[in-house]
């Protein structure tokens, strides 16, 4: 949108982060090469620039890391909770201190806007460690009986959409409860986890308590399969989640899975419209829609559909897409060429199936992976774009006439992670929320997260909860 008031570029300084040309695996407190010497490159998705070369973990490395974690477990789990707490508080504080550096790093490696890493990811990461730090010496009060015991070694596999935040969601509760961890970050976003290794060093965390293994799916599978892993925590696609569920069958490994979603954002005719428009935008365009709990299906009451869509389109025209390091950027890059191809293919399917496609007018940068914010209108439950998780900045708009129709459509999905309700009527919020088969229901807001609040899905969106008092259960032998 051309305007007399154009914002001059306002890039966050890249010099606040010092990325080494290469990184090893972090095992038993040391950086080390992979046993087979393999490496892979991690690129900045907004420019395709190679940021660093990272050791690629294989099965042998997984075994070494699990052994280190096992060795560390005895002492770590025997520490008084108050001492474990102090380590975690230290980590939380160091993250706060280094948050600008980590925000820039995350933006470079992931492609998401600095506005989000600075104002959402990093504050939530620090808060998560701070919150679980406080639990370490209070487990007797958590509602799982007296002196609940840790499980042992946790094998954790995390995705690329919120690399450091997902690490925090996994590591903080695991350590607070006395487990040790082996964590595999995603192959497209290994860097913040490796910087976290350095934070563990600064905090004086005992060796082997946290081990970081950058790598691909084979390393993740080896970690899940390892016989000396007691707990598997996975966040990622439903397909991989199902494979993990099969892998652990017949073992006594405890499992939590946080998988895909196709969240319904339901807007009633008595909604606070301007705020609903913001909520829809946040719901699907936060992190380029690469959010498992994204409100990717807009269910709008027919009586206000035209008015709402006009407002939404006008609002989308003001979104600023471009350099993720620019402080005024709202929409950053798609994380990888592979993900971009998947989004593109699904959008093409939407068009082929007859849904009407609309994109905000915006210029896409010539290098990097980009996808303009996109709406599909005239979508029904029968369209692929209403059923499959796109994991990108694509919103499917459906309409409904009555609350029960809205609920029926919202629930008509294999997934059940999140939902949104927009209405000024309190009893409608609660009645609809009661009927929704989803793990998180936001009313008159969307995509809100807090370490005290449990998060997780129904149905094929996975099982187990992360966050809050409830998040402790996944790491306790209860």
């Amino acid at each position: 949108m051309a305007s007399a008031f154009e914002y001059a570029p306002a890039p966050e300084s890249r010099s606040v982060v010092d990325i080494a040309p290469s990184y090893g695996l972090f095992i038993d407190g040391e950086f080390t090469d992979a046993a087979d010497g393999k490496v892979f490159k991690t690129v900045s998705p907004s420019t395709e620039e190679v940021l660093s070369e990272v050791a690629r973990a294989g099965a042998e490395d997984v075994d070494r890391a699990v052994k280190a974690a096992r060795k560390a477990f005895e002492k770590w789990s025997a520490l008084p909770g108050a001492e474990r707490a102090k380590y975690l508080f230290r980590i939380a504080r160091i993250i706060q201190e280094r948050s600008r550096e980590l925000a820039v790093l995350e933006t470079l490696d992931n492609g998401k806007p600095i506005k989000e890493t600075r104002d959402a990811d990093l504050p939530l990461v620090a808060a998560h460690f701070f919150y679980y730090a406080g639990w370490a010496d209070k487990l007797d009060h958590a509602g799982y009986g007296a002196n609940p015991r840790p499980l042992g070694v946790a094998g954790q596999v995390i995705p690329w959409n919120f690399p450091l935040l997902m690490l925090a969601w996994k590591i903080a509760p695991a350590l607070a409860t006395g487990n040790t961890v082996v964590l595999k970050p995603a192959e497209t976003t290994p860097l913040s986890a490796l910087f976290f290794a350095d934070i563990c060093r600064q905090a004086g965390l005992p060796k082997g308590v946290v081990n970081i293994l950058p790598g691909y799916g084979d390393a993740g599978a080896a970690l899940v399969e390892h016989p000396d892993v007691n707990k598997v925590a996975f966040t990622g696609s439903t397909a991989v989640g199902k494979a993990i569920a099969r892998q652990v069958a017949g073992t006594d490994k405890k499992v939590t899975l946080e998988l895909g979603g196709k969240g319904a954002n339901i807007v009633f005719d008595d909604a606070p419209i301007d705020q609903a428009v913001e909520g829809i935008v946040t719901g699907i365009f936060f992190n380029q829609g690469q959010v498992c709990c994204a409100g990717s299906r807009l269910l709008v009451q027919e009586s206000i559909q035209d008015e709402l869509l006009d407002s939404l389109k006008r609002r989308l025209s003001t979104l600023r897409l471009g350099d993720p390091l620019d402080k005024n950027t709202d929409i950053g890059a798609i994380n990888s060429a592979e993900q971009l191809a998947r989004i593109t293919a699904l959008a093409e399917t939407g068009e082929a199936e007859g849904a009407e496609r609309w994109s905000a007018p915006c210029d896409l940068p010539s290098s990097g992976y980009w996808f303009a914010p996109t709406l599909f209108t005239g979508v029904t439950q029968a369209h692929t774009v209403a059923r499959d998780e796109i994991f990108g900045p694509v919103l499917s708009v459906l309409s409904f006439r009555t609350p029960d129709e809205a609920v029926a459509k919202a629930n008509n999905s294999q997934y059940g992670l999140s939902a949104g309700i927009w209405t000024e009527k309190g009893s409608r919020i609660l009645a609809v929320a009661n009927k929704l088969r989803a793990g998180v229901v936001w009313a008159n807001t969307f995509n809100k997260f807090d370490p005290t609040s449990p998060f997780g899905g129904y149905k094929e969106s996975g099982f187990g909860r992360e966050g809050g008092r409830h998040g402790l259960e996944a790491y306790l032998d209860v």
Partner: protein
Amino acid sequence: MPTTAPAFADVTASDGALRRFLHGLPGVDTVGLEARAASLGTRSVKTTSKAYAIDLAISMIDLTTLEGADTPGKVRALCAKGAHPDPTDRTTPRVAAICVYPDMAETAKEALAGTGIKVASVATAFPAGRAALPVKLADVRDAVAAGADEIDMVIDRGAFLSGHYLKVYEEIVAVKAECGDKARLKVIFETGELSTYDNIRRASWLGMLAGADFIKTSTGKVGVNATPPNTLLMLEAVRDFKAQTGIQIGVKPAGGIRTTKDAIKFLVLVNETVGEDWLTNEWFRFGASSLLNDLLMQRQKLSTGRYSGPDYVTVD
């Protein structure tokens, strides 16, 4: 000329109809509105865009003195300041208007002759608005006769809060008639006294339906004056009103805007809510006094590279 947009002629037919209309407007979610305003407040406006914003902001100021101690001398000093905000730099834009009490309007008019700067006068028993309608109208008549180009009236908050919307409406209509084609009318809601965002949205529509040329947040005389959320909400109202009627209404946040940083945040709200149609002093104003000097110091910083100080701008 009908004062009410034809599309809405029926909603002002009775107190009941007006109430049903105003209470039928979409609600405002407080947390969401404030979050949106705060989010726009994080926009980073630097270098060339900052220079543009500073000059734009200066040109939008209704430079104001509304004190019991005002004298012709004080008003003339303010007028001189408005015409040449920075005597060391003649490229500095002039302010939009000088805002005074009605008895000072004539002095201001004389002092501003030939500058193109408007005279704005508060009226209608400003700031409380507690007087009989004929007294308020006489106040307006006086100001217009003294040469005021713009009238800043206050609504009857007591009537509004007790639900007598039609009374408020009719009063605005009467003041508007008094302004005739001589003066543009700014309607002050005193948002701090209306208290809720729902009320601010209702007042905005009420004012626009009654023929306001501008809707304005505050008198500057109560605890809470212009804020980013209440101004964002009023911008949304003028945006929606234009979409439905084709009629453009101006917005004036007033009171409490003291720094360049604050002013730029408001301009970002304008830019991203209603767009460039409003990015001119015909449609957006700042009611302020100390803001001007901060803008001037920031302007000097941009041109010299050094931080300026209060000794390098003029007092008025």
